[in-house]
């Protein structure tokens, strides 16, 4: 069934988009991530402009992280104090990100920047995650104990605060900075940032695994809602019809993904996720390097009359 997307301005097959939402939802449920880094490239691939894809995926991620956050809230697996400090940075970062997005769009370099950030971010995070997963897998094979967690330089910073539910005593500076960074890249790239945020919180901030996913989902939820708002107000690029189809597919797929994820061991899961992230990054890199089919592109600057 064909449906006309009002903002993306092109007809798409509803079932194709629904299936894409479900597939990405499955993966996101399995790994406990938002899945924006998969959804945005897929939308670009079916012909939606990167700008509309980034803006619309924001609301899709908001929906899936809200349903996740509700579940974690019931299990008391969210640290409200940590989440609010993260949000201070997150909201600032999102505003900066949307502003940058608008500037780049005017310069005609938005598509390039989206592609470049995907290459850099995804290949770095992907290979880190992959190698870490590989090492963890080897360790469990050999039956060795994982190395003990020690304090690092981050724990020497001033302005310390006690986060009761996570049972950590930590400076707010790195937390706010992480919030800004995640908010910024989220708004520019159309990703929730969960797949970067969770590892950073675990390895750098030593947030216990019991609260890490729930808390990161709260940040994702609020930054993505805020990004949706800003993209709608400044660039008028949020396609609500597209977003709704993606949401419905996404939240459904996520439930089945979460069930499948429980059957796989943690190390294998990280290995798979690393590989997935890496392959998306490589795909973007290839696109940048090979000669494009057409060197010219047209952009309409609004119809008058």
């Amino acid at each position, binding site marked *: 069934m*064909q*449906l*006309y*997307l*009002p903002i993306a*301005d*092109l*007809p798409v097959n509803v079932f194709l988009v629904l299936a894409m939402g479900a597939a990405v939802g499955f993966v996101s449920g399995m790994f406990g991530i938002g899945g924006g880094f998969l959804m945005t490239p897929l939308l670009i691939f079916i012909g939606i402009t990167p700008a509309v894809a980034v803006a619309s995926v924001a*609301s*899709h991620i*908001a*929906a*899936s*992280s*809200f*349903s*996740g*956050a*509700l*579940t974690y809230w019931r299990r008391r697996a969210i640290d409200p104090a940590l989440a609010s400090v993260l949000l201070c940075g997150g909201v600032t970062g999102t505003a900066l990100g949307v502003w940058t997005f608008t500037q780049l769009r005017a310069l*005609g*370099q938005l*598509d*390039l920047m989206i592609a*470049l950030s995907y290459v850099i971010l995804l290949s770095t995070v992907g290979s880190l995650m992959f190698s870490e997963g590989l090492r963890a897998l080897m360790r469990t094979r050999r039956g060795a104990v994982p190395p003990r967690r020690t304090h690092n330089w981050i724990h020497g910073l001033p302005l310390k605060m006690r986060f009761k539910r996570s049972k950590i005593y930590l400076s707010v500076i790195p937390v706010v900075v992480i919030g800004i960074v995640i908010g910024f890249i989220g708004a520019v790239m159309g990703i929730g940032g969960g797949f970067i945020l969770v590892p950073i919180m675990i390895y750098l901030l030593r947030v216990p695994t019991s609260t890490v996913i729930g808390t990161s989902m709260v940040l994702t939820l609020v930054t*993505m*809602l805020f990004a*949706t*708002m*800003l*993209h*709608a*107000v*400044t660039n*008028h690029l*949020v396609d*609500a*019809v597209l*977003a*709704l189809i993606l*949401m*419905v597919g996404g*939240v*459904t797929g*996520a439930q089945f993904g979460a069930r499948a994820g429980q059957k796989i061991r943690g190390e294998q899961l990280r290995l798979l996720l690393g590989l997935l992230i890496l392959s998306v990054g490589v795909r973007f890199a290839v696109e*940048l*390097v090979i*000669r*494009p089919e*057409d*060197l*010219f*592109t*047209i*952009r*309409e*600057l609004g*119809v*008058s*009359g």
Partner: protein
Amino acid sequence: MRALAAALLVLLLGASARAERLIVSVSNHRVTVTPNYSGEELVLFGSVEKDASTPADRTAYDLVVTVMGPRADMVTRRKERTFGIWINTDYRQFLQVPSYLALFANRPFDGITSPEIARRQQIGLNNVLLTQRVSGDYADVVPNDAFRSAFIRLRTQRGLYREDASAVTFLTPTLFRTGIPLPAEVPIGTYEVEIKLFANGAFVGKTETAFEIVKVGFEQFVANTARQNGLVYGLVTAAMALMTGWMASIVFRKD
């Protein structure tokens, strides 16, 4: 006295220009784009009416139909290889160019009239005026300009610009028809149709008509709201996201 002569001349010229009258009509003056719209074809038909002042030797006519969609500014960008990757480097701005442009004729454009008249009457995609802003100046450039030809090629690929020298068919020596194909992603707005009549290579007369493409239904409502009430639109979308997420967490609740 001179003014009177000029007035008389104008009157005479006007009379000779009115030797043939073009009567045209499109099959639908208001095309509605619905959610499942996947392109359509309008039909333009008309006839050439001769009157007493028509020279007797005028039997074969040539017609050129130009359909122009709403005008917009557009930017064409060119990618170049920089540091091993392909980056948009150079660009040209096209000012108030038609978002849809179709040129139809009953035989190849270069056979209808002289290159001089073809250029003046904008016959054929190569002769249509596409104003560019070139470093502060406004001008149309030569037809083989890289940006201009890329612009036309890309618009043609999307079915938005087209040129068909066999689309106009004469049913009788004076009765003609042509189809106007409108692709799925047709821009909305007012479309001007110009019908130009040629006889023996000379421009004889023209007439104009118009049709309108409107989007109806939910899609158009969404698109309008997004552009006019960005804040409300954003709030509604955000609320929709929360609702969907909340519903999912209820539907799939395990306990």
